[in-house]
């Protein structure tokens, strides 16, 4: 009988220790304002339509503006040619055919 009671007491003690350990592991301290802002910012940036990564400013500025304007003009001509091909023979493949434009490759 004594052994049985001893076992029951030890079981209760073990259960109490387990509950305390679980409570300590899952307990959340109230977040500070700074932490809340950080969490908000992280959540905001994790949208489905994430922002397009911008070309590094230094890299973009290395191209002389005249060259950039020529690239844009070349891009427009290639896009018009691609669109004209689509109008000649309309199909989904023709509509989305790739060009060699440096602005999109």
């Amino acid at each position, binding site marked *: 009988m004594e052994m049985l009671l001893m076992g029951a007491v030890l079981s209760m003690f073990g259960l109490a220790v387990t509950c305390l350990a679980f409570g300590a592991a899952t307990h959340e301290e109230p977040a500070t304002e700074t932490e809340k802002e950080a969490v908000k910012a992280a959540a905001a940036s994790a949208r489905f339509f994430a922002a397009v990564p911008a070309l590094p400013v230094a890299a973009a500025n290395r191209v002389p503006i005249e060259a950039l*304007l020529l690239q844009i003009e070349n891009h*427009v001509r290639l896009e018009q040619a691609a*669109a004209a091909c689509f109008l000649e023979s309309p199909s989904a493949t023709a509509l*989305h055919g790739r060009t060699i434009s440096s602005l999109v490759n």
Partner: protein
Amino acid sequence: MIDADLLKGLPPAEAERVLALGKRMLLTTGAELFHLGDAASSLYLVARGRIRLTLPMQVRNREEDILVEERSSGQTVGWSALTPPYRFTLTAAAPLETEVIALDREALNAYFAAHPDTGYAVSLNLASVIGQRLQLFQAMWLREVQRMVESRCA
């Protein structure tokens, strides 16, 4: 006589009569024919040379005229002159010495009122010019949207 897209299907003598309503203009290299936002009172047929049609765009905080389309001999420029609110929606300039025939809206309207068959034929040709441009830019726009979707959902 120039082979103008606007006068397609007209008997040669009738096309000559329409062209006779116009005034020939010679543009030196770099000369501007009309500017974005200007009042549009004349339609232009390119007799020889080339016309660049541009729109302003901000490139590195500078406003630059970006090529949208080029028109060459026989093609029509400035059909804003025939459609309200009669304002040019592009800027047109000659990249090389170019000759155009300017057709005044009032003169055309008066002639077409007196010659409805000619007016009808020219209207159909104009609709074709406008329709082709619409389809072309519609396709270009969709290609751009496709790229945007690909870059954002990759």
